């Protein structure tokens, strides 16, 4: 069992990496694309039945993401 945490830059924060990739995608012929945002995915392996979602939210807020600049989501997968 694992938790997959996805951290992305907040919409209000400039994401120069995403902007550079959007430009490169246009060079590859992909037309009329909107914004590209680059984040990170963190996979945490956990023993089955031990997932405490409230605790996971706390860790995401306090450590895995910085709420000033980033948003996070997580999902639990088998």
């Amino acid at each position, binding site marked *: 069992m694992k938790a997959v945490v996805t951290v992305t*830059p907040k919409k*209000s*924060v*400039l994401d*120069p*990496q995403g902007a*550079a990739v959007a430009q490169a995608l246009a060079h590859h012929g992909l037309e009329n694309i909107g914004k590209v945002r680059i984040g990170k995915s963190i996979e945490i392996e956990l023993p089955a039945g031990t997932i405490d979602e409230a605790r996971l939210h706390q860790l995401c807020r306090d*450590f*895995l993401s*910085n709420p*000033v*600049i980033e948003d996070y989501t997580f999902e639990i997968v088998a």
Partner: protein
Amino acid sequence: MRFAVLQFPGSNCDQDAVAAVRSFPGASADLVWHKTNSLAGFDAVIVPGGFSYGDYLRCGAIAQFSPILAAVKEFAAQGGPVLGICNGFQILCESGLLPGALVRNRDLHFLCEHIHLRVETTATPFTKNARPGQVLRIPIAHGEGNYVCDDATLAELENNGQIAFRYTDATGATTEAANPNGSRAHIAGIRNAAGNVLGLMPHPERACDALLGSTDGRVLFESILSS
């Protein structure tokens, strides 16, 4: 005056900070390993630049949980002067001692050059000997120095006079071209509400010896030493 210069795995401006401090009469500097949990006996703390924990996760994100940071928070709460330089500024923001955050430079490049910054407040122990509006020529060396914060935080920083330095050109004008990394409101450094915690991206410790091209960083150390 006894300075503690913190050392994390990946710090690389720690020795520069020690050398800069020791160039002033009446100042001593000791390296303090991040696993230490006391700052007893020190009069000032420098959180130096570098790449603590390889900048993994986010710059300063892992260092904020080192044991020494609890001691730094206590030291700061008692009014002790704390100076965060470059990665040290990032660590102070991550730990909540300073508001906002530092993200990737606008143009994605790592910047290593001399820039100009204007002193915006002399109400900190680190700038009290500077003239308001004084322009300093000091090097920067960072990939993630783009200061961001929300509108409410920016308003608070402006209203409380917490913006310590802004990037400017040589004449002290905040032009777009003189903002090297895209920082909000040209912010190069800020202080906390009380004034005793200051963080900045430029490296004053690298501008303390004429041989290195500038001595404009000395005013920060002279200020703290005369307080």
